[in-house]
């Protein structure tokens, strides 16, 4: 019904209403009950013609998450336009149907269903928060759809229908802790995160690793309510405990208050080592580079990465979306989604979900991404490197450490 009406200007809504009315009346006249029952089993076929293939894009372009997800939307569109300029996938141009998840999890589920069951998209590039992914997951598994998910996340998940292009928790945590223990000779750690699944899982891994592998000590562990902006008491405790390292996973608006209040309390990069898991260039823009100077982030990608591939990517991104657009870890991971999908489809020689999944799980798909060569592992995650960036006043991070390749391990044993 809406295969080609989704992005066509102002009359679409009215036309749909009309269609709906006409359809209802017609159906009422025909009164063919069987038709309605049988017409629904069409979710399995995919919208592909000789000339084009339809994919979906499902992020929040409105609501509280819009500010975070915009980078991912732009990166995916850049990748798709580049793929189309090269001739598309299996000779078909990619057409994108963009839907708004509106920062609301039921809406994500509704829109995913719409993309798969009404538009029959070949793949979806989307989601950002774990909550939205969890809402979409049952829909994907039921309709056998494909999702490319760009955010670094807590792991504990491995769906046949999802490719995770961000790092799972063990990839982000262990190498970073090793680095800080070695270079800063750190023994005591203070853990702080926002109170939801990602920081809690991450800190659970970190605690175990610090205590059993690094033989360090946790002197405090705290979780702030999502959206909380009051860190006074936490900062006082930190002053009292004087940890070697503050290990932080504070997200969203809280992040801005957290760093500003640290600075106001006189805690800065000169007198305190702080390693965070939740500041990319996007957040740095909101927090202000001057509030971050000297603190460290553990990510797989930083905009400042000095390689020919990355320089090309950065200039292309800026040419399309403006010279001031920051490029964070998730933005780069989102850029990888369409390219990995293209490789998998070409290897499968088909858009059929099961065949594409088989190609994904072959363990032979690689891609020369802006972050460097990446490997798609049979467990649907990427083998990548971890980097530590030191923040500078201009909101860019200087890369001070690059790890070896780290195998993804979404279900770590013993943690």
């Amino acid at each position: 019904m809406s295969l080609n009406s989704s992005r066509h200007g102002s009359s679409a809504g009215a036309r749909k209403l009309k269609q709906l009315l006409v359809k209802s009346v017609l159906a009422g006249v025909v009164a063919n009950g069987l038709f309605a029952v049988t017409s629904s089993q069409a979710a399995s076929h995919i919208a592909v013609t000789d000339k084009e293939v339809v994919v979906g894009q499902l992020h929040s372009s409105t609501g509280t998450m819009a500010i975070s997800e915009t980078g991912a939307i732009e990166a995916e569109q850049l990748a798709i336009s580049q793929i189309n300029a090269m001739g598309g996938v299996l000779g078909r141009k990619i057409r994108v149907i963009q839907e708004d998840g509106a920062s609301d999890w039921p809406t994500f589920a509704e829109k995913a269903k719409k993309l798969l069951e009404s538009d029959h998209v070949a793949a979806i590039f989307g989601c950002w928060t774990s909550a939205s992914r969890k809402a979409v997951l049952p829909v994907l598994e039921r309709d056998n759809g494909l999702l490319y998910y760009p955010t670094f996340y807590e792991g504990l998940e491995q769906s046949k229908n999802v490719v995770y292009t961000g790092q799972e928790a063990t990839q982000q945590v262990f190498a970073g802790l090793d680095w800080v223990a070695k270079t800063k000779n750190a023994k005591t750690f203070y853990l702080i995160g926002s109170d939801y699944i990602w920081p809690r899982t991450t800190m659970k891994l970190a605690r175990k690793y610090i205590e059993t592998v690094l033989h360090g000590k946790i002197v405090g562990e705290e979780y702030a309510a999502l959206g909380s902006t009051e860190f006074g008491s936490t900062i006082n405790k930190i002053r009292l405990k004087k940890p070697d390292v503050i290990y932080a996973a504070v997200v969203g608006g809280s992040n801005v208050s957290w760093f500003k209040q640290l600075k106001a309390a006189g805690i800065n990069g000169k007198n305190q080592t702080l390693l965070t898991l939740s500041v990319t260039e996007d957040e740095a823009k909101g927090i202000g580079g001057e509030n971050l100077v000297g603190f460290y982030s553990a990510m797989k990608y930083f905009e400042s990465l000095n390689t020919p591939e990355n320089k090309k990517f950065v200039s292309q991104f800026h040419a399309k979306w403006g010279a001031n657009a920051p490029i964070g870890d998730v933005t780069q991971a989102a850029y990888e989604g369409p390219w990995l999908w293209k490789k998998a489809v070409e290897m499968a020689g088909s858009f059929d979900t099961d065949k594409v999944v088989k190609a994904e799980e072959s363990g032979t798909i690689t891609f020369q991404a802006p972050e460097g060569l990446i490997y798609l592992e049979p467990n649907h995650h990427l083998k990548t490197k971890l980097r530590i960036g030191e923040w500078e006043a201009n909101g860019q991070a200087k890369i001070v450490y690059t790890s070896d390749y780290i195998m993804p391990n979404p279900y770590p044993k013993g943690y």
Partner: protein
Amino acid sequence: MKALGMILGGKRGAMDLLVIAALIFVVFPLGLDIFRLNLVGKYLTFAYCAVGLVMLWGYGGILSLGQGVFFGIGGYCMAMFLKLEASDPISTAHQTTPGIPDFMDWNQVTQLPIFWEPFHSFIFTLLAIVAIPALVAYIIGVSMFKRRVSGVYFSIITQAIAAIVTILVVGQQGFTGGINGITDLKTLHGWNINTDFAKYVLYFVNGVLLLLSIVLSKLVLSTKLGRLLLALRDKEDRVRFSGYDVANFKVFVFCLAAVISAIGGAMFTLQVGFMSPSIIGIVPSIEMVIFAAIGGRMSLVGAIYGALLVNYGKTAFSESFPTLWLFFMGLLFIGVVMVFPDGLSGLYKTHVEPRLRQILRKQGKKTVSSKTSIEKAGA
């Protein structure tokens, strides 16, 4: 028969009910594919709250901005039952503690909390969906109406309750699933709720329950209680001075609206397949008031049209304009409130109905006049 007619609001009331029943049970299922029908089913679950609000606000004059809480209680009760069924020890074998819901395992909870235990029973769950919201509404109602808290103060307090409950649910994620909600629900007593057939069945059950709650509401309104509600909305003091305990009536209608909303919540969980705190907070609670306002706050059937129209608008606008659609929704609300303060049902009464009558009358005249002309010609 005559009594039934009275309850339904005479010929016109019965007609309205028949039209919406035809729409829900015949036109939509025949005209829409299962995906769209499932969406309509979701919209209709919000209509329960709007129906409750018509009783509470339109007739009782009590504006609650926290109906999402009751919707949530119903939805979470159902979700807890379904989640326990989905978390059998075999399918959760990879967890540290098999046999408990996955999100508990992620949050280092190692034993099923006591208040989850009774939700192994389906009968208990069904009772809880009705009893818990009634009890909560009773406690809130008694503690406020007995103290004569009313008007805008009541609205603010209900709104605060919505905020508190959301924070509680998000904060206690080991027990509630936190911001993710309770997801990945699969079967009801071994019956897969995600098949197309199940979606049809659930859609019809949902429709029947919705119409039943309207009939129940009409039943209440047709009694002396209904007239007293109207009276205390318009002149509370006079009712009190006539010797009635005003607070009791208010508590009753508040409980009624709560129970109706909770049934909607339970049906929401069944049809959408998960429950999350994003549908119980302040914003969705206010949206429910908007559904009632757009439908016409004195019209029980209008509440359904309001919920359908607004939610259809949301879906259609956001599919066509993924970045701008919120502005269109805003314009729709402002437009409706400014131009048609009595909502769709007011619009129908002032504009459509008189014209319909005119047309009918004209046609009647025409047939009469054409008869006479024939007679004349014959003569």
